[in-house]
């Protein structure tokens, strides 16, 4: 029970008035960000990141992760009351949540959503508490070849398992890797791709790109749509909460299944969006009463919310243990770690115990406080939507500019942010995914360094990536995932050759 002792230590780090106050601020800001259309978890975290630059790392990560929890909670409010998913991962929540609100059961739906979010993330946090230290101490034995193999695995799984067009994922990823390389080469000290510009000498900052891609582009996309909305106002009474909680044990199988899906997709780069849909679809498939889904069934709220929250939380596991983010938001938090002067990776667990366990403890506390907060303050946050978008939009633009400038005190970065804003707008509309770009930009240099250090160690021999069982199996797995679409197609063909009457195209 070493993890338990360390967790207690984490709580001791956390329980100061200052940290608790920052936690509340983070949660409120997060719910706010989650409720507003056109702003989501990653945008909120990216925009509010500069607030934390002068804080100590522990307070900073506690506040930022609470913004993230808050955004996850907040997304459910607009989905259920207004049928507008504040976040992509809340889309599945609208299927049954909004019909429930129309039937006058908005309070039940909201309670169900918040409670299942809480359960999902609790399962994921337990997983992090007991699994992350083990993975980290195992990864301490990793040398550059192992790390490169893990990075390769991350990149390849995006290409192989992503739902978008393969060439679009590759465009997004190579562009990110290329832009990560701009500036001084860390191994040889040579300049590259700077074209004699002093501004490019610093390289293209990851956070500037993220603020443009997620913040500015989202404003442009939101403005395109009709901004009128109409929805239900609701407040939650303790009686309703107890009623929903009493029903909870009946849905244990759904909750468990969705938590497991969420944790798995969160650790692998599948993401909360995929998890919420999968959770919903599986709950429907296993249900005895399939037709009642989509017409206001409470289970249809439980399933996607549990999965989305479990996934959003467990995405932090590989970030903490290996320095590899499992989601866009985790990538931004990783960018934050670097700004605060911490080196992400397994050494965090050894060198910055207070930071790591403070963060894990804050996940427990943040979710409990967040649950109570949303259950009691729903009407206030629903009313936030009354503020006209034409007042919110310029304020978000200003916050983005502040964020972009603050990172390196450079006016150039504000212009760069604008460029990335336009780029993000175009990419989203033509279906080039942004997550691979984000991940590549934040990991690019580290992956290249790992590769070149292994090459220096091995005298330029590529066989170093198959030099022992561990690195060999990771490398092989990476290549298998890269070619997964080809492999699965070939397997499908072979199966249909053996059984000629089997259906080939299973939806």
């Amino acid at each position: 029970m070493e993890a338990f002792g360390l967790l207690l230590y984490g709580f001791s780090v956390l329980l100061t008035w200052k940290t608790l106050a920052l936690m509340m601020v983070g949660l409120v800001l997060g719910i706010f960000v989650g409720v507003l259309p056109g702003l989501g978890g990653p945008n909120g975290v990216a925009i509010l990141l500069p607030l934390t630059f002068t804080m100590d790392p522990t307070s900073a990560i506690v506040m930022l992760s609470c913004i993230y929890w808050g955004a996850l909670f907040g997304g459910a409010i607009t989905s259920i009351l207004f049928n507008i998913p504040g976040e992509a991962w809340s889309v599945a929540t609208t299927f049954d949540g909004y019909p429930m609100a129309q039937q006058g059961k908005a309070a039940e739906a909201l309670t169900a959503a918040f409670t299942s979010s809480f359960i999902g993330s609790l399962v994921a946090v337990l997983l992090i508490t007991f699994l992350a230290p083990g993975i980290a101490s195992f990864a301490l034995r990793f040398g550059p070849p192992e790390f490169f193999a893990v990075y390769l695995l991350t990149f390849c799984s995006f290409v192989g398992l992503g739902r978008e067009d393969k060439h679009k994922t590759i465009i997004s990823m190579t562009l990110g890797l290329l832009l990560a390389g701009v500036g001084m080469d860390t191994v040889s000290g040579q300049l590259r791709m700077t074209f004699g510009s002093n501004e490019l000498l610093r390289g293209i900052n990851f956070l500037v790109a993220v603020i443009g891609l997620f913040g500015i582009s989202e404003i442009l996309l939101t403005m395109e749509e009709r901004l009128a909305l109409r929805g239900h106002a609701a407040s939650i009474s303790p009686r309703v909460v107890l009623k929903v909680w009493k029903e909870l044990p009946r849905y244990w199988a759904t909750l468990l299944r969705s938590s497991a899906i969420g944790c798995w997709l969160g650790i692998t780069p599948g993401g909360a969006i995929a998890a919420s849909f999968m959770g919903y679809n599986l709950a429907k498939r296993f249900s005895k009463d399939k037709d009642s889904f989509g017409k206001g069934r409470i289970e249809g709220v439980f399933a996607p919310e549990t999965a989305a929250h479990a996934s959003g939380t467990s995405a932090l596991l590989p970030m903490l243990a290996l320095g590899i983010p499992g989601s866009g938001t985790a990538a931004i938090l990783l960018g934050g770690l670097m700004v605060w002067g911490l080196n992400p990776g397994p050494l965090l667990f050894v060198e910055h115990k207070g930071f790591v366990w403070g963060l894990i403890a804050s996940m427990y506390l943040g979710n409990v406080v967040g649950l109570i907060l949303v259950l009691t303050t729903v009407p206030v946050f629903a009313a936030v939507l009354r503020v006209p978008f034409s007042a919110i939009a310029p304020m978000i633009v200003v916050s983005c500019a502040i964020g972009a400038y603050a990172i390196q005190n450079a006016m150039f970065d504000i212009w760069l942010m604008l460029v990335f804003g336009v780029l993000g707008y175009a990419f989203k509309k033509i279906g080039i995914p942004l997550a691979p770009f984000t991940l590549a930009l934040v990991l690019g240099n580290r992956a290249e360094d790992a590769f070149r250090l292994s090459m220096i160690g091995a005298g330029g021999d590529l066989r170093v990536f198959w030099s022992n069982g561990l690195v060999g199996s990771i490398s092989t797995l990476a290549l298998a995932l890269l070619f997964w679409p080809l492999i699965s197609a070939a397997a499908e063909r072979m199966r249909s050759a053996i059984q000629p009457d089997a259906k080939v195209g299973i939806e």
Partner: protein
Amino acid sequence: MSKPEVEIVVEDPNPPASDSPAVATTRTVDVVTSSLLLALAALLGFDNWRTGMSWDSTGPQAGYFPFYLSVILAAACLYGIGRELLARRQASPTFVTRAQLRRVMQVFVPTLLFCVATQWLGLYVASFLLVAGFMAFVGRIAAWKSVLTAFVFSLTMFVTFEIAFDVIMPKGPLEALFGH
């Protein structure tokens, strides 16, 4: 319990017309974007070839990775362009309609002006102008409300970042007047 509760209704003062003609199809924008990325890949590829893209005794040189990444990027772009051009017969969804583009420009142009203004007037004055102008002219909100909101917002930002959190922003003549 199941009474139809109070509703929240927010109207859009000038929604984009739904029958507005298309400015571009998604295919056109896809091909244009891919072509621009292809040009970028060529430029970066050339620069990395100049830096050195070969493999010496200690492994790859500084330009090795970026060079081959440029090649992969170029190949993916070419594939995308080729696929879109071959599928030309099928209809492509609308990328943006004229009314939508006007709305996007309503945010983009003020944002651009805001960035220019930040350079000369400092961020806080520029943000006051952006918020007040946007609310009054795009959102058609009463002038006094717009100006008041903008003033309170800019002041809050100033107090939060400059004073409470010590994050220094670009400042102009107005702040200098107050000795900041």
